[in-house]
């Protein structure tokens, strides 16, 4: 089943986001639709430039404008129409209804304020509580994300913490107002593998315990396999495949998904002569080929693939795929 079973907390329909560049107007997102159910963990995977981060920013309407703008489609977040919402209302939505964890915790935290200062500020923007109570809440939150001696940590500055700890602080901040949707954009990419495993486990545990909807954005199919129930695969601003995680990994329908799965570096028992690859590279968004965007790299491409763009259609196994010759 590619549609989420519970009531959707997020519903995106035909979303188009455009950016003005020197090379002309490019479409970073070209008509994407998906939803996230209450308490569901959805993974979005794709390579740089595929539009996965733009999707995340659009949901909170954080696309820098200019040069970017939402040029079409709708985003419904817990019944609120995000696209037409006035800015002051949006500010209330961010943090309380949906919040975001970024890749780089050092740049996402303000270096001249203590952890406590920043957490108290977030809490007091959304809740009418005193500074003392907000600080108590913040300490509790730090404890929830398994930071040792939170009473001490709360008065420290970001540079005094390790990368893994900073990301835990970001998680604590993002969750401090119990959002219904958490958007995690490459939350562990900047961390070492041993720390990555710990932080990912933390995010996953809290997501289940708080029954939040979650969008996990990553280029790493390994991380998604362990965390998400459904996966969206993006390529060049389009969704090219969508399926339940197990189904996607075991029976990838789109040749690109197949190629991505094959090219993940993994420990192998036998050394290979050469590693499986996807030929060529991602086309320039300002100069997209006619037809399927993956055609020039696709081992199965036929003439029709270079002429017409395949629509995203239902598969027999309940997912969706945009390919004329799916596996």
């Amino acid at each position, binding site marked *: 089943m590619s549609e989420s079973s519970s009531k959707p907390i997020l519903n995106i329909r035909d979303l188009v986001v455009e950016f003005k560049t020197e090379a002309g107007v490019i479409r970073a997102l070209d008509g994407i639709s998906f939803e996230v159910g209450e308490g569901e963990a959805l993974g979005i995977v794709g*390579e*740089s430039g595929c539009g996965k981060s733009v999707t995340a920013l659009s949901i909170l309407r954080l696309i820098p404008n200019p040069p970017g703008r939402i040029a079409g489609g709708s985003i419904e977040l817990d019944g609120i129409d995000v696209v037409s919402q006035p800015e002051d209302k949006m500010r209330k939505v961010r943090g309380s209804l949906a919040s975001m964890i970024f890749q780089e915790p050092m740049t996402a935290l303000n270096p001249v304020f203590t952890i406590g200062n920043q957490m108290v500020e977030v809490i007091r923007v959304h809740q009418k509580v005193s500074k003392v109570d907000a600080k108590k809440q913040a300490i509790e939150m730090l404890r929830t994300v398994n930071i040792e001696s939170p009473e001490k940590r709360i008065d420290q500055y970001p540079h005094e913490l*390790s*990368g*893994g*700890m900073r990301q835990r602080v970001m998680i604590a901040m993002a969750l401090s107002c119990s959002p219904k949707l958490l958007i995690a954009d490459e939350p562990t990419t900047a961390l*070492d*593998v*041993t*720390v*990555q*495993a*710990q932080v*990912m*486990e933390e995010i996953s545990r809290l997501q289940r315990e708080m029954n939040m909807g979650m969008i996990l954005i990553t*280029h*790493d*199919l*390994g*991380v998604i*396999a*362990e965390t998400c129930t459904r996966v969206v695969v993006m390529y060049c601003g389009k969704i090219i495949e969508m399926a339940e*995680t*197990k189904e996607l*990994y075991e029976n990838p329908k789109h040749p690109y998904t197949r*190629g*991505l*799965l094959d*090219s*993940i*570096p*993994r*420990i*192998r*028992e036998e*050394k*290979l002569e*050469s*590693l*499986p*690859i*996807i030929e060529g*590279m*991602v086309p320039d968004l300002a100069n997209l080929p006619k037809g399927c965007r993956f055609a020039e790299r696709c081992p199965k491409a036929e003439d029709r693939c270079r002429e017409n763009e395949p629509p995203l259609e239902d598969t027999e196994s309940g997912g969706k795929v945009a390919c004329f010759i799916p596996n």
Partner: protein
Amino acid sequence: MFHSQLIKPMEDPLVQVKNLKTYYPIKGGLLNRRMGDVRAVNGVSLDIQAGQTFGLVGESGCGKSTFGRSILRLQNVTSGEVRIDGQDILSLDREALVKARADMQIIFQDPYGSLNPRMTVRQIIREPLDTHEVGEKVGRDAEVMRLLEICGLRKSVADRYPHEFSGGQRQRIGIARALALKPKFIVADEPVSALDVSVQSQVLNLISDLQAEFGISFLFISHDLAVVQHISHEVGVMYFGELVERASAEELYSSPKHPYTQALLEAIPQPLPGREKKKISITGDIPSHHDPPKGCPFQPRCPVAMPQCAEHKPPLKPLDTFSRHQVSCWLY
């Protein structure tokens, strides 16, 4: 001994590093005095055979990049010995070092920062040829074209600038530049970490092919054990400035000995949904250089630490007399 007569005697390794130490001073206090040292590389010894790749793996801050830069003398070394192709690199004077550098090159992680944005691809690749006055001037452009072809780039790209290329192509340009002087030894410092997975494998395959064709030795530095496996003959694992395990690639992956190596292997996220999740055996972060732990540096995070681990540092020693598999752990 019977054994040693059967084994073909090993040739002298191309790269020999003995007890290399690179310390950075920690300054502070009144008059900015030296308060102590960050022991970025703290006594590492290893050797690399001609035509082989040594994979050096470890997490950020373990000293792997400092090690790579130190052996090429791109970094001031505190003590130790480095011999590359018979030359004592650390004692060379400036002029001799410039000459020696023709034989040893480096490929950097960041294909955006390591190419001069104001130079064309032709100029970038030609520069080392001009500096070292290789061949006749007229022949150098033809050499640039040959190098582009070897690295899988079209000749027509020669007069374009770095910003016009994707990350994978820029890394190919960096590799072409490193190959220009026909080096015997290349340090590749996280060469594929900044690339997308689909392009990563392309560049890894290119490096493997180049090695097979030209017999270059590589020190391949990476944080990712999965990336290193394909490309390496031998693998060393670094932690907190020291080598904690070293073995042939086959052995390291099939029977890792050090608890840290085991943890690194376990922590790699697997693209197998529904797999029984392994319990994460190590917690916490790498120790601080301001307050290094006593005994084994991994001991505060180690799931199987014994009392003696906090007292004495285990030496890096072979598992048994004939083994090239070395580990520094009191368990063995």
